[in-house]
């Protein structure tokens, strides 16, 4: 049991600190868990008796529900804490909140927080496992993992694949987790978006900068289209949503000029008609909903491995329930 814990470490704060082998282990462990969600009784006993707190300092629907499903399908006991209405809104510090939760003898914390580095900060100060469900502009590792699993499902491999991440790379934790995960597993990553939304020295992360969306469409096998936060207009990064759609929006018209069919991904929630047109989002090459399905499996794998499970046991757990 301890070998797998050691294999991932105590916490999952990002994909940057993980090795290719560790990332592959998570993706491989997710495979048997996909099947659990397809059964009529969607439950395995792997985390029975474990207590998990979902600590969300930022609003989230998709990620919080996905984690909660993953936890419940592994038979863990879960508690959801939202920042508003809790002691956090009364001025309690992050470390005090966490220590109080831990004093109630919990096993894991899944945290989303608006500050980069918050997950690592928490992991260094409590004994429970910490899983980063998004920290500021830093990382969103389970999103990166589910994107990779979806790409692997479709192409059968990640090595040599060309994935273009399009949009607001500067403020995106999804982009950073994708860049680390994909490059470690041998994929090529391109980043595309207005230069106002490109991080400084981003090339040093080993990515290709694609200045225009037409370049990305010519270059890539898959597009991962980021959500454009509407507050970027007020902050002066962009003139208008309309112009963003005209210059950087992914439309069928633009995709028709690609040398091959491109896989279309989006971490959600989408702004239809801004970064992605509806007929692309709902089109035949879109895997936006399979991404959501894979999210549950990947999160089950992460929870399971951090709790000390091994991939072999995950396989047998799945089969035993089948009988």
């Amino acid at each position, binding site marked *: 049991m301890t070998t797998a814990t050691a294999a991932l470490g105590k916490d999952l704060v990002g994909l940057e600190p993980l090795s290719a082998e560790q990332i592959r282990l998570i993706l491989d462990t997710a495979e048997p868990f996909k099947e659990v969600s397809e059964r009529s009784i969607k439950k395995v006993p792997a985390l029975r008796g474990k207590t998990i707190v979902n600590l969300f300092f930022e609003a989230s629907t998709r990620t919080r529900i996905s984690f909660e499903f993953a936890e419940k399908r592994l038979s863990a006991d879960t508690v959801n804490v939202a920042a508003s209405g809790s002691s956090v809104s009364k001025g309690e510090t992050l470390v005090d909140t966490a220590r109080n939760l831990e004093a109630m003898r919990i096993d894991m914390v899944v945290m989303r927080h608006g500050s980069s*580095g918050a997950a690592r900060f928490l992991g260094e100060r409590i004994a429970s496992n910490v899983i980063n469900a998004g920290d500021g502009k830093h990382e969103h590792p389970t999103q990166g993992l589910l994107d990779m699993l979806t790409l692997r499902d479709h192409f059968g491999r990640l090595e040599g694949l060309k994935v273009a991440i399009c949009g607001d790379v500067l403020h995106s934790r999804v982009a950073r987790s994708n860049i680390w995960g994909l490059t470690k597993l041998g994929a090529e990553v391109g980043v595309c978006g207005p230069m106002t939304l490109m991080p400084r*020295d981003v090339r040093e992360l080993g990515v290709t900068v694609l200045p225009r969306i037409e370049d990305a469409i010519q270059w890539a096998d898959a597009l991962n289209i980021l959500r454009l936060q509407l507050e970027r207009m007020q902050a002066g990064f962009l003139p208008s949503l309309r112009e963003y759609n005209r210059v950087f929006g992914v439309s069928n018209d633009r995709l028709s000029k690609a040398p091959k069919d491109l896989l279309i991904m989006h971490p959600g929630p989408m702004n239809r008609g801004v970064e992605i047109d509806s007929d692309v989002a709902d089109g035949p090459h879109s895997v936006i909903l399979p991404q959501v399905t894979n999210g549950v499996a990947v999160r089950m794998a992460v929870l399971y491995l951090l709790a000390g499970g091994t991939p072999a046991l995950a396989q047998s757990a799945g089969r035993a329930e089948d009988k």
Partner: protein
Amino acid sequence: MSSPKPILIRGGRVIDPSRGTDGVADVLLVGGRVEAVGLNIRPEEGEVETIDAAGRVVAPGLIDLHTHLREPGNEDVENIASGALAAAAGGFTAVCAMPNTDPVTDNQAAVGFVKARGEAARRARVYPIGAISLGQKGQQLAEFGEMVAAGAVAVSDDGKPVVSSHLMRTALEYARTFGIPVADHCEDPTLTAGAAMHEGIVSTRLGLKGYPSAGEEIMVARDIILAELTGGQVHLCHLSSRGSVELVRRAKEKGLRVTAEVCPHHFTLTHDAVEGYNTNAKMSPPLREAADRDALRQAIADGTIDTIATDHAPHHYDAKEREFDDAPNGIIGLETAFGLAITELVETGLMTLPELLLRMTTAPARIFNLPGGTLVTGAPADVVILDVGTEWVVDPREFHSKSRNTPFAGRRLKGRADLTIVGGEIVYRRS
């Protein structure tokens, strides 16, 4: 106050940067003044405290143009007495206190309070710096004349930039009446809003908002242009970028009245120190790239940068024990500055010890027109005895400051102060 007992410091290597002298000699201090420097001094009859300085360096006390002593307002993290003791322990005989206290030191009464508290502490001398604008709000000039009469040696809105170019212009012009410099924290807030560290590859990886070097350099350039326009004396605080160094170099070639300081953390560390979201590596301006650090070192060595200042900025443990975005800027520096300077600038062969002492004694005294920074006969008996050979390891628990926020814990340094004398009185002796 009765006159202190005369002190005879025997056999040390006496370095006086104000005269360019360096050699073994005795130093006699009488009545709070330097009485004599020479070989085999025999004091007149009477009680004399004799200190054997053989193998050690005797120099004018170090002078720091940039500290935050947090009194009034935040006495839990530092007060004038604890800050002045930390200064003495670091070899400083004089520190200048920035006015971003609570309330702001922006009037003669507040300046007088800082001065009186400094005198009562009887450690390092504390020279108040008055605010440029009332409440440091960047709008209306504070009363420079009355503050100078009460003891202010310069004006600054440090902690905040002077955003209005008009205000900076009038401050430089008005300060000429009183012969004081205007010290500016150079930052264009429209480029740095929300920034947590230097903008570069590390901020990109950590997902932290970056502070581009241009955010400093634009204001450095503006201040230099205004110094030329007004004939005023501008002192540029805590420069951190190679671009700023280049601007100062050109200003000095033109003969403008521009001086500049650099902090030990900026000539020692780079943005890599932020790795792991280390809040003790968070300061404004931020730690930058290796090329910036190297340019700062070179500029200190060649004199483009006039002086080393600490920007000593105490914060409570809890304040730094936070998410990186929410942690305050700044680190303490009084008790590590000299060791870092020796280790990083002299031991590396960039400059000699007398050149370093010039930057830390005579030069800052001249910039703010302070007594001290010299061992000429009749000068204040502000003297430090330095052990420049001993290696030591930084242990924040041993600091005399009330705060512990330093990125240098555990770092091995060479050189520190053994004994500090202010006005002929021993104010610190390493036990």
